[in-house]
């Protein structure tokens, strides 16, 4: 394997017809890093991945490994020369070859000695816990086993970069978790630089060193799992990592206290208070200030888990009526109509509250819920954002 320090993707764009599937995509990652592209279907994450492999020609931008340019839209190193490995959602094992032949495929192309091929295939099989499967055909194996063969087929070549395109999406829930653990262990052991594409936030949070959140071909946020999970950059990221309760409103008061931004926002349900820990210079902070000064709308984001039944959760107390109660094992997810924030008079009934609670709440039951101002996020709404979008 040719050694390297950094892989950088600069202003990568891919256009299909008139539409940009990926636009202004820039990211740099270091050796041994595990980076995840996270986003809903159609966000361009797989396209970005395929552009990096060279399987899809890029429209513009550059890809560098240290100082070596492997793609600039005109001159492109073909995928077979990039020394990358790729794992596919549907495994893409060669059905006419045995497990052994599948794993040896790349080694044979590189003209390694027979004994070397055998040794490395055996080692790769051991690494993915498939000793004894060498003579089987892919169709004789389960999905999880097939995907492990696909992983072995890549890592046996010691790729500079390993790319995984929704590798767990075709597996059932239990296997998915098992193989996820194995992937994590494998990365910790081999330290292969990895790009992982998924729409599943749990996978992204569990595996990644860094997460790149994508929407409509554009990067929304790049950050550690902790940052993306608890400090989302915008309403889209917030929604994608599990925030709900996007209520629109106008800021009535904005002030600073102990380095935090205090906001009082008039929503349709009433007044909502937030203590925002957006640091100085954060675009979220300046855009809120702009929205306050211009009287433009803002939108809230609160995790369902952070809303507490009863008035003990914090100073934002509201009256609700449960509309839908969904049993989820540990807790119930309750969708309720917001009757009004306490002490704020009658609010609109259209606003919806989403919360998770272990308190037994029946449908149509009226109850009081509350949320601490620390747990409430506010974002300025982008110009022309559609009504109802978080």
């Amino acid at each position, binding site marked *: 394997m040719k050694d390297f320090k950094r892989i950088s993707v600069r202003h990568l764009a891919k256009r299909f017809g008139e539409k940009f599937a990926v636009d202004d995509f820039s990211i740099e990652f270091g050796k041994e890093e595990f980076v995840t592209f996270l986003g809903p279907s159609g966000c361009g994450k797989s396209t970005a991945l395929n552009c990096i492999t060279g399987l899809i020609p890029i429209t513009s931008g550059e890809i560098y490994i240290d100082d070596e340019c492997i793609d600039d839209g005109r001159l492109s190193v*073909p995928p077979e020369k990039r020394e990358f490995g790729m794992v596919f959602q549907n495994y893409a*094992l060669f059905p006419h070859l045995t497990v052994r032949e599948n794993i040896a*495929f790349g080694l044979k*192309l590189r003209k390694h000695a027979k004994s070397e091929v055998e040794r490395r295939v055996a080692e790769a099989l051991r690494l993915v816990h498939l000793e004894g499967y060498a003579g089987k055909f892919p169709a*004789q194996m389960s999905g999880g086993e097939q995907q492990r063969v696909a992983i072995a087929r*890549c890592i046996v070549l010691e790729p500079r970069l390993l790319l995984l395109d929704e590798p767990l999406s075709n597996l059932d829930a239990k296997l998915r978790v098992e193989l996820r653990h194995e992937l994590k262990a494998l990365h910790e052991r081999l330290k292969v630089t990895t790009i992982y594409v998924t729409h599943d936030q749990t996978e992204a949070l569990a595996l990644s060193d860094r997460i790149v959140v994508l929407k409509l071909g554009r990067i929304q946020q790049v950050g550690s799992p902790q940052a993306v999970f608890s400090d989302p950059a915008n309403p889209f990221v917030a929604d994608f990592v599990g925030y709900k309760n996007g209520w629109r409103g106008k800021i009535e008061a904005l002030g600073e206290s102990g380095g935090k931004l205090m906001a009082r926002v008039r929503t349709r349900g009433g007044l909502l208070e937030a203590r925002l820990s957006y640091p100085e210079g954060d675009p979220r902070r300046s855009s809120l200030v702009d929205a306050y000064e211009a009287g433009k709308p803002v939108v809230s984001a609160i995790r369902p888990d952070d809303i507490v039944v009863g008035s003990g959760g914090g100073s934002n107390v509201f009256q609700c009526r449960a509309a839908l109660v969904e049993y989820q094992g540990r807790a119930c997810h309750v969708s309720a109509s917001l009757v009004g924030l306490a002490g704020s008079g009658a609010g609109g009934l259209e606003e919806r509250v989403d919360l998770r609670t272990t308190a037994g709440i029946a449908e149509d039951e009226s109850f009081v819920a509350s949320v601490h101002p620390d747990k409430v996020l506010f974002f300025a709404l982008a110009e022309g954002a559609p009504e109802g979008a978080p």
Partner: protein
Amino acid sequence: MKGSSGNGAALLLIPAIAFIVLLFLYPFGYGLFTSLTLADGSFSLANYGRFFSDARDLRTIGVTLGIALPVTLLAVGMAVPLSYHMRRGVPGEKLITFFLIVPVTLGTVLVSEGMLSFMGPNGWLNQLILALRLADKPIRFTHNYAGVAISVGLQGFPYAFLMLLGYISGINPDLEKASRMLGANNWQTFWKVLFPLMVPGIAIAFCLNFVMAFSVFPSAVLLGQPSGPQRVIALAAYQWAFEKFNFNAAAAISMIMAAIELLVIAIVLGWRSKMYKGASIVGKG
């Protein structure tokens, strides 16, 4: 087969069985029987003996194989790269497919008649060749081997192509990507991944094409020299049946035709199973 539902399901097989018995097994059995009897009804191998000792008849095997094998190989050999290039669809695919199907739908006789005038010594093709000074006298495309081969090829190629196109576009495109990512270039990917997966399709296309070509009849009569170099085996059978009214001899010839076709099919299928070991257990691509 126990229980009423099993019996009920078995009843559904009757039309298919009746069809096979009436249209295949009975005529085949009748033909076999006829070939093993003489005109007076006595059993004899004389019809076969006569064929193999008649040099003029025996030649027809070589003549027909000489047309059918190269033409089939060429048709399938051209269909493989063409279907490979069209596996992800190309602009104008419908038009290309249309022009390939036309000769099949028009039938051999019409195509052969067309070829006679189009490719004949005074036809447009030769006038073009002369006008472009590609040759100083008309090239013979009709009433010879070339005429028969072109006509048989025109009829067979579309079948081979459409069948292989269906086959190759059904192969999971990620297999090609996977192969590239493992270090194979396009050429290696074709030979190590796509071709082995196409082998079953190639084998079937070859067999069907070969059987069609081996029973060539109208093309040979219209575009060849049916009395001499292009006296194909089907023509020999026809002449014995309808010119000499010896149905027993004709039946023997058709049995020999069937035996040769089966032999070639057996060889091709043997090659297929050697090339594609995983075939029996791999259902999904």
